[in-house]
């Protein structure tokens, strides 16, 4: 209803021109179109201003009008890993007393966008600190949270079988349930899934378990994996616990030996690896979210402190170990804890 009302907005003058059919109003068509255009441009300018502070996602937690205050202050821009989107656009924005603009893509995309100069955010947050070395070299960064891999399952019969089995993978190996995962060449979740399956082979003492679970037909880009899982096309999927919490999935927790959540098990996780198509080898490691600030202004410093402080993360399924935030590299004085 109100969608149609807003259609009427910038086009009202043009629509009036249609109402009458005599020659004059036909002539008026382009004038009217021009008028509509002018209105649209004017609205565009205000739209631009309004957009700066608009709520980043479907949360509705912030109202777009309220964030534009502070005398037209430029918002602090945060470019973040997709799995951080909701935590940042809800939790972080609520915790910071300034306008914060959150943009989220896959971690590898985020790192590349910044490395190639296509984005120039104040703060970058990635789902894998290794990306700071591999793709986006920065002088320093801070590890601020960990996450865990879990096996999310649907509410279907097959999905429940995964939940109720003694060992979650038995229904998958037995062909009773399908397990999806993301593309290991595209995002850290993909290769971390393979690490977890490798570690599982050892943990459950089932050599070849990984190969039995890995169906090349069940690899998807992340967006596609989640749609298929949510529409019931897949019975189970390996995802981050934060994603499962944010989206309300049912899930099975994995043992710490394989879920990559425990910084203390770094050495054990390091026993497995994956070869990327670029020829690089990624080694298993605890999941560590890292952030770096790229500017020194007060708003950025304050926002960065909240980002790595991590109090807002608990509600979204992340874990913040005692020792975090852990800084590495040459941290500028203003950003030192």
């Amino acid at each position, binding site marked *: 209803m109100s969608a149609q009302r807003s259609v009427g907005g910038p086009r009202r003058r043009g629509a009036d021109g249609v109402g009458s059919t005599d020659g004059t109003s036909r*002539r008026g068509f382009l004038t009217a179109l021009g008028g509509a255009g002018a209105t649209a441009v004017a609205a565009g300018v205000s739209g631009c201003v309004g957009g700066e502070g608009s709520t980043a996602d479907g949360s509705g937690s912030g109202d777009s009008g309220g964030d534009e205050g502070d005398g037209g202050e430029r918002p602090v821009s945060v470019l973040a890993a997709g799995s951080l989107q909701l935590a940042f656009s809800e939790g972080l924005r609520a915790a910071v007393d300034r306008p914060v603009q959150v943009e989220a893509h896959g971690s590898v995309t985020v790192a590349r966008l910044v490395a190639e100069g296509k984005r120039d955010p104040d703060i970058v947050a990635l789902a894998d600190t290794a990306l700071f070395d591999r793709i986006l070299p920065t002088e320093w960064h801070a590890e601020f949270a960990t996450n865990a891999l879990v096996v999310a399952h649907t509410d279907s019969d097959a999905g429940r079988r995964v939940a109720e089995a003694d060992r979650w993978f038995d229904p998958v190996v037995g062909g009773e349930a399908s397990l999806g995962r993301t593309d290991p060449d595209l995002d850290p979740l993909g290769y971390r899934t393979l690490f977890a399956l490798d570690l599982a082979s050892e943990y459950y003492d089932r050599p070849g378990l990984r190969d039995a679970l890995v169906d090349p037909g069940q690899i998807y880009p992340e967006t596609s994996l989640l749609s298929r899982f949510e529409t019931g096309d897949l019975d189970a999927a390996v995802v981050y616990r934060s994603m499962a919490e944010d989206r309300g999935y049912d899930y099975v927790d994995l043992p710490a030996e394989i879920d990559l959540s425990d910084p203390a098990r770094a050495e054990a996780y390091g026993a497995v690896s994956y070869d990327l198509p670029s020829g690089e080898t990624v080694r298993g490691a605890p999941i560590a979210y890292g952030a770096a600030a790229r500017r020194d202004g007060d708003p950025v410093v304050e926002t960065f402190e909240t980002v790595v402080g991590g109090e807002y993360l608990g509600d979204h399924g992340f874990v913040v170990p005692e020792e975090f935030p852990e800084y590495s590299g040459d941290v500028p004085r203003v950003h030192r804890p």
Partner: protein
Amino acid sequence: MSRVSTARERSPWGAAAPLLGAVLLVLYAVPVAWLLLAQPPGAVLAALDAPFVVGAARNTLVSASVSTALAGLFGVPLAYWLARARFRGRTLVGRTLVPAVVAFPLVLPPVVSGMVLVGAVGSNGLGGLLGVRITGTIAGVVLAQTFVASPFVVLTARSAFERVDAHTEEAARTLGATEWGTFRRVTLPLAWRGILAGVTLAFARAAGEFGATLMLAYYPRTLPVQIWATFSGRGLDAAFPVAVVLLALASGALVCINLLGESSPVLPE
């Protein structure tokens, strides 16, 4: 006599066309109908209540209108030039190279178009040189949409102009009409249906444009970007009501465009 009776017989084609066409129609309609039916009306209304959806709807409408207007303003002259250059068979450039350039945005995946545009107008490109920020502004959205959608105007309008009989134009010129007058009162009215079809396509494409917009201007959010962001944060159930809003908005706007276009325009002298 026999002619009349033949015309009244149902030819195989007359029966087959609706059947074959219906297959495609079902393909379009069923997923959309599912989208609409699967949504509790309350969820759609709730989405309309959220300020970020209203903001995204406004951004979508404004940017798609502006980029469609730009596509018409620059696309129609380009189409006219291409049609006539081709008719005269004068230049190789007009006949082959320029049409190929027009097709670039159609061939490139939108995300790649977005990347190319960011490189060209971003802080390392023209935007940096001129000290103007285009990425992340409504101008960036309009640029992305115009890039991706305007070829629809150019290509449909070109074929519409080509169908206008050149002899009609020559007759007008012989009778003393200026070149502009001929275009305004002969060529444009005759080609108007085709141009309108192109404008309609361009608007629809602009309103739904996602890939290039995502790269060039994640903010200010348009509905397609908002749908994706909501989906990544909250999942399908949260994203679908926003998709219904986009569908309603775009359908409404397309009806308006077609109503507007019912009468052929008369340009000023």
